[in-house]
């Protein structure tokens, strides 16, 4: 395994770790708004690391660039969709949870 391959593999593991954390956040966070944070940030970062890791192991510069484009497109889609979901939720009067875990209870 060459050095580049090893770095690529490490980036893939880091990406997978962020995806795991994002999924745990999705399950543990209390409401729709907080869950959007888990998706829009942690999973995007995980995808970024995976795209970068794969780009390092790609056969050609063009396919490496294509992987980065996949990430950019996913970023745009994710930002736009979170915006739409959050706006709709507010418009429907879904109250965000104001506090969680400060004294062990949820308001």
């Amino acid at each position: 395994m060459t050095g580049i391959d090893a770095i690529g593999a490490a980036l893939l593991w880091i990406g997978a770790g962020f995806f795991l954390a994002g999924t745990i956040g999705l399950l543990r966070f209390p409401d729709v708004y907080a869950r959007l944070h888990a998706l829009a940030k942690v999973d995007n970062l995980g995808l970024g690391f995976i795209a970068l890791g794969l780009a390092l192991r790609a056969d050609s510069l063009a396919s490496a660039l294509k992987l980065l484009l996949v990430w950019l497109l996913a970023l745009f889609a994710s930002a736009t969709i979170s915006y739409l979901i959050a706006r709709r939720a507010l418009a429907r009067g879904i109250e965000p949870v104001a506090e969680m875990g400060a004294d062990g209870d949820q308001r």
Partner: protein
Amino acid sequence: MLALIGRAALFAGLWWALAEGAARDWGVGLVSVVLAVATSAWLWPPTTTRLSPSGLLRFLVFFLWQSVRGGVLVARLALHPRLRLRPEVRRFRLRLPPGAGRVLLADTLSLLPGTVSAGFGEDDLRLHVLDRDLVVEADLRAAEAVVAGLLGLELERPEVTGA
């Protein structure tokens, strides 16, 4: 004209990446590039906004660094044994003119530490903040300044904050 040639070069580069460098697909590629330039000229005429190259660099550095910060921060909150969040919905007074700049700012803030954009008001942006102590006004203003620099937009002068 120069702007259109620049766009054609950009779309040709995109095609090159999508086709993974395969030379035999350039017939379709050429048609796609021409259609893409025509569509972009129609949807976003070259005169309206110009990207500044140094602004782009600053935006990318800011964006990548803040993305990592945001991802790590939310991941830590998610993994903490005692889940502790203090969310709130905040109104952020916009100083960017209406248009592309505001949209880009809303998208950028959705990907940055602790904030998700949740709708525009007349002159403000509603933000859902994951933990009110972690998100400070200065970070949001920094994002606004970087977006303005990228698109070459003027920021409205800050309001005098009195009593």
